């Protein structure tokens, strides 16, 4: 009896050990070069990286001989882990809704993302509205509750959308389900710009109201506060630079339009998302300091994507923009490492620069680069072991740590499958037994 307890505890040990040493690996730090050596993890942080390291007391040793370590992948555009629709598509400005309210920590997509090396994701509202809802950054801490997934301290965001998607509900001929009675303004790109400007205008007035209230209370007066309007509250934060704008866009004209609108209202767009024609206006984007998060090689699925080129990321990067590659898809999310490799094929980026597009670059775009995005002492212990060069599409994720906890282990996953299947079969059989026999056979004529 005691033996089984010891075995059980020993099996659990790696999961809860505070000190871990991963040794004998090829370590791609992204920011500080590539080396052969070890990573030391203490208290959820990277304590040391080097060819030779100091091994702390009571460390769990993980031999990663012949394997590769990279920082946990960061997906800058995702819609996983959301309960219900990712769009509040009934109104063209839905800045009152918040993805934070509907996080679903039991979405299997989180686990599948882990199995693809993703440790952090920017979870966004959909693109149905010129101004969408509030967004946030999550870590893929599979097994924790909703609060436990939130990336603490990451600046909250809000989604804007330009181009075809937000004007679809306004289009009586072509829109999905839009009829003349339900057509929702805007129906053209002109209207999209107008909608955004109107909303920011309103927010500006709202901010003035609250600033005045603040000034009065500072003077010792006791006025009744203005009514708090959730829709305008988040836009006020945008104007104050406290909330990042992530803007879905495709065509060069709308990209430029939004940069100019932001200028007019005194804030910066944090990231342009998809931005498939970003290469055409790269210098304007670079001048504004906005980041760009794009697909590697998607194109032609819509007319606004017809001029998309797989060199987009490389061109923008060469012109001085911080570029990341994202998935916007729960399947694509599982191989962002190979998406990064495409930046090597299309545009000749180096391996480090390519890898940066799914690690340190999205970290910088999301303002979390002090915590994640590269393998450096002091950063969160979010890392991934691959069995082969991570930029090869022959590579497989073996293990994933977040905050120094092992959240994914391929071996454990594979070994656990028979037991899971058995458990499920038991329930199915149990249910079958308690059911009356159904009429009719299964085989067709």
């Amino acid at each position, binding site marked *: 009896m005691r033996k089984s307890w010891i075995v059980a505890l020993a099996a659990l040990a790696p999961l809860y050990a505070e000190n871990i040493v991963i040794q004998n690996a090829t370590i791609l730090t992204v920011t500080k070069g590539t080396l052969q050596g070890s990573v030391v993890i203490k208290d959820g942080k990277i304590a040391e990286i080097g060819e030779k390291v100091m091994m702390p007391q009571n460390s769990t040793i993980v031999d990663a001989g012949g394997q590769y370590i990279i920082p946990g992948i960061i997906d800058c555009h995702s819609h996983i882990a959301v309960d219900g629709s990712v769009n509040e598509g009934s109104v063209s400005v839905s800045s009152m809704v918040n993805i934070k309210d509907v996080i679903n920590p039991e979405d299997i997509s989180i686990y599948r993302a882990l199995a693809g090396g993703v440790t952090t994701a920017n979870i966004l509202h959909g693109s149905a509205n010129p101004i969408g809802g509030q967004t946030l950054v999550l870590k893929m801490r599979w097994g924790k509750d909703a609060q436990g997934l939130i990336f603490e301290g990451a600046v909250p965001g809000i989604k804007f959308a330009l181009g075809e998607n937000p004007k679809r509900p306004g289009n009586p001929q072509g829109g999905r389900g*839009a009829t003349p009675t339900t057509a929702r303004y805007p129906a053209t790109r002109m209207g999209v710009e107008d909608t955004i400007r109107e909303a920011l205008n309103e927010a500006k007035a709202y901010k003035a109201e609250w600033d005045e209230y603040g000034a009065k209370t500072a003077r010792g007066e006791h006025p009744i506060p203005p009514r708090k309007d959730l829709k305008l509250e988040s836009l006020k934060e945008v104007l104050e630079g406290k909330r990042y704008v992530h803007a879905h866009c495709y065509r060069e004209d709308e990209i430029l339009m939004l940069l100019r609108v932001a200028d007019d209202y005194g804030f910066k767009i944090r990231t342009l998302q998809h931005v498939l024609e970003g290469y055409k206006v790269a210098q304007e984007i670079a001048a504004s300091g906005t980041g760009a998060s794009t697909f590697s090689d998607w194109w032609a699925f819509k007319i606004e994507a017809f001029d998309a080129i797989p060199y987009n990321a490389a061109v923008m990067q060469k012109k001085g923009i911080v570029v990341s590659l994202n998935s916007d898809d729960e399947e694509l999310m599982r191989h962002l490492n190979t998406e990064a490799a495409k930046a090597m094929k299309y545009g000749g980026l180096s391996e480090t620069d390519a890898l940066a597009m799914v690690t340190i670059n999205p970290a910088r775009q999301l303002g979390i680069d002090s915590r994640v995005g590269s393998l450096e002492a002091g950063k969160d212990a979010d890392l991934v072991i691959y069995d082969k060069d991570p930029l090869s599409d022959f590579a497989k994720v073996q293990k994933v740590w977040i905050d120094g906890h092992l959240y994914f282990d391929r071996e454990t996953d594979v070994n656990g499958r028979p037991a899971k299947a058995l458990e499920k079969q038991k329930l199915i059989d149990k249910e079958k037994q308690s059911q009356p026999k159904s009429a009719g056979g299964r085989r067709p004529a």
Partner: protein
Amino acid sequence: MAGSRNFLFGSNRPFFGGVFGAAFAVRRKGVTVFFMRKLVPALLLLCAWAIAENPRTLAIRNAKIVTVSGPVLGKGTVVVRNGLIEAVGENLAVPAGAWTIDGEGMTVYPGLIDSLSTVGIPSLAVAPAPAGRGGRGQSTPTQTPTPATTPATAATPAPPAKGPEDRPATTSWVLAADEIDPSDHRIESVRSAGFTTTVTFPARGIFGGQGSIIDLASAEHAGEMVVVPAVGQYLAVSRGGGFGGFGAGFPNSLMGYIAYIRQIYLDAEHYRLVQEAYAHSPRGMERPPYDRALEGVIESKRILLPANRVVEMDRMLRFAAELKQPAILYGMREAYRAEAALLLKKYGSPVLVSMHWNEAPRDPDPEADRTMRSLENIDQGPAAPALLQNAGVPFALYSDGLDQPRDLQRAVKKAIDAGLARPDAIRALTLSPAEIYGVADRMGSIEVGKIANLVVTKGDLFDDHTQIQMIFVDGKQYKPAPEPPAGGGRGATEEPGASQ
């Protein structure tokens, strides 16, 4: 029709007292025994007939009495007077003139309380859903037991809401008590299952209004049925069955519903501030408008929020804490999971557990993907009450659309078979809901002074072959409605739509 029995009620009181008194007086004055032997029995018979249907004092003797609040009495007596429990105990003296019921072989329980119902509001009765509801059509997973139709609004459909300012699907000022229709046929049906009381909510829209505690008495005026007119605001985070999408109006996503509810509470807080300031010194201040939606919200002393999955429980408990509203979660279909009990203990909120257990699909595709979660839910759902009981989480059971006696009895039996001790099952339908709604001082157990809501059975309540003999609501006796032919009434309520 219960009404026809009532015609003698009320008029007998002085007569009854007077005759008895006269008989006594005659005896004392030494009138012949002959007179006594003929007149008194005749008079007694007259009285007996007169009071047979509606005794003002009645006693059930020699019955097993499950008081819920105290020990079970193996052989006891309950005395009811004026609709209240006057006495309960073993070896009690039956008051003179009380109509006596021989409870030999019977068990007396407190009348059952359905802690979340729409009985009494016939327009909210759930229609059986058409087959093929399927799982993929829903945009929000938190399908609450909200009826599919809102007939009140069907006649003149409002234009789609353009934002929270249009107060979509909000009728927070409504009190269920004002909508009670005593002719709702479900009253008799549910009462025949042993329920004497329902907590009826105007379960429609996002802010449906406040629920009221209703005694299921046959009354001419709805007001006579109302025990407590306002017990809390009913909230939902879906429109129930309708797929959103463009054109449906704000809100049409789960986060939209939550944002809307949050805005309403912000508005209510602001409204209160402004109204108070205005009331304090109106002179020189712009008159604030009256907003009945906000008034309704402000008046509600607690809110009901839907939560089935553990993720939803977590979400709603946090939300209620943010809104600073005492909350009761309803649905609770994943309450059998260990995480649920831990979460609920942390917040200390009471919960209402749906008795409408998920069942295995009929005639399923043998190769369709059945998720582990849904298989577990079907297998372990009925074990939820037992687990909550063991964890010490205050909970009550509710019908969630079931309204046929056979279905209700079976539903509770399932929980008992899954581990809920029978006394706990009974408590979950009597004293617990009374406590949750703050009316344990007047109902939920057989105690002196409480309302005489009782159900009398032959056999243990909820067993398969137990017969309900009679039901007492506010001290008035009702007989259970005759059972429909086997399988007759079952179809309607076992359809999937009964609980969204």
